[in-house]
């Protein structure tokens, strides 16, 4: 029996693609690599940061807790992103709850910083814009690396995996900017350090919906 040309083309493609492949590294190995990259990012933040008294700040428990919560939330989100790319291994609600709780703890801790009144809207936006640019700069490379790592797998939920990827990259970027930025005011921190995390995760979810679920399309 003669099969339609489309079947023959599909078979030819499958046969051409039917070579043995090397399995992906386990999520925790890839996570360790990504964290090594993020350690470099944090190192760059310490080196180029504008904060003159970082040593004093590193002795403040609140500052350390803020950094710890941001980094822990970032690690959890990155782990969830990498697990979401392996069918049957997705983190589920417990992982998501942990990540959201850690993010909420970070927000609560930042809200404990002294509140300062905004004297000039222009100054507030100008300072914030600098932090926003820094966030984008600190998150660009880690986001790309994590996105590529997730895309090499087979994410079943593109928007979810994209959101985790964005959240992980921007949480670490927020930690880096917290180290680098000399402003310790509640409103500045919430508006320009935390808000971009939510926006970054949302944008990344949109990109994920478009680009991460393509692996199983004919």
């Amino acid at each position, binding site marked *: 029996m003669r099969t339609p040309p489309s079947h023959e083309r599909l078979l030819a493609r499958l046969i051409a693609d039917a070579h043995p492949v090397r399995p992906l590294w386990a999520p925790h190995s890839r996570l360790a690599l990504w964290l090594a990259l993020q350690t470099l990012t944090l190192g760059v933040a310490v080196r180029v940061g504008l904060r003159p008294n970082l040593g004093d700040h590193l002795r403040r428990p609140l500052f350390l807790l803020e950094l710890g919560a941001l980094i822990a939330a970032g690690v959890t989100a990155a782990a969830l992103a990498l697990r979401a790319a392996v069918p049957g291994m997705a983190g589920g609600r417990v992982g998501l709850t942990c990540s959201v709780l850690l993010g909420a703890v970070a927000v609560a801790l930042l809200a404990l910083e002294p509140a300062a009144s905004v004297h000039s809207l222009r100054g507030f936006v100008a300072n914030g814009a600098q932090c926003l640019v820094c966030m984008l700069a600190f998150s660009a490379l880690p986001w790309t690396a994590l996105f590529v790592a997730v895309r090499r797998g087979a994410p079943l939920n593109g928007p979810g995996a994209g959101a985790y990827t964005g959240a992980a990259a921007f949480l670490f970027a927020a930690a880096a900017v917290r180290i680098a930025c000399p402003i310790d005011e509640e409103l500045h921190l919430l508006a320009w350090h935390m808000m971009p995390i939510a926006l970054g995760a949302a944008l990344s979810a949109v990109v994920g919906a478009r680009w991460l679920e393509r*692996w199983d399309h004919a």
Partner: protein
Amino acid sequence: MDDIGPEVMRFLRTRVPNPQDVGDLYQETFLALHRARRTYKAPRPVEPWLFAIAGHVLARHMRRQRIRMGREVLVDSLPERATGDGGHARVRLAQALDRLPLAHREAFELVKFEGLSTAAAAARAGTTPGALRVRAHRAYRALRQLLGS
């Protein structure tokens, strides 16, 4: 193929009424498995991986079908053969199942449709027997409310 083929076929048959769709989905599932093969690494259990992919293919099919059904236009004349009460109940059950969270629905289907034991169903869903029992119980409760009995 000989080992997992019948399992995948049974999984699809219990969820999709149209045999032609089952055949298509079976092929789609194996194409997806082929494309995702680098994400499987021995000695991880193969069942959670396999059925996560099959469930994904199935969910995509359901989504497409729902969109298609939404666009369909009702006809004036009735078909010659009636669907009967069984068909109506089946449609209601399928609609109610669609409204359940994915994990609850999966637990219900594994236990009720496929007749698996709690331990086997938990292994397939990649969870513990206790968690699976809780999910299945929540699914029964939600279905009872949705079906109004």
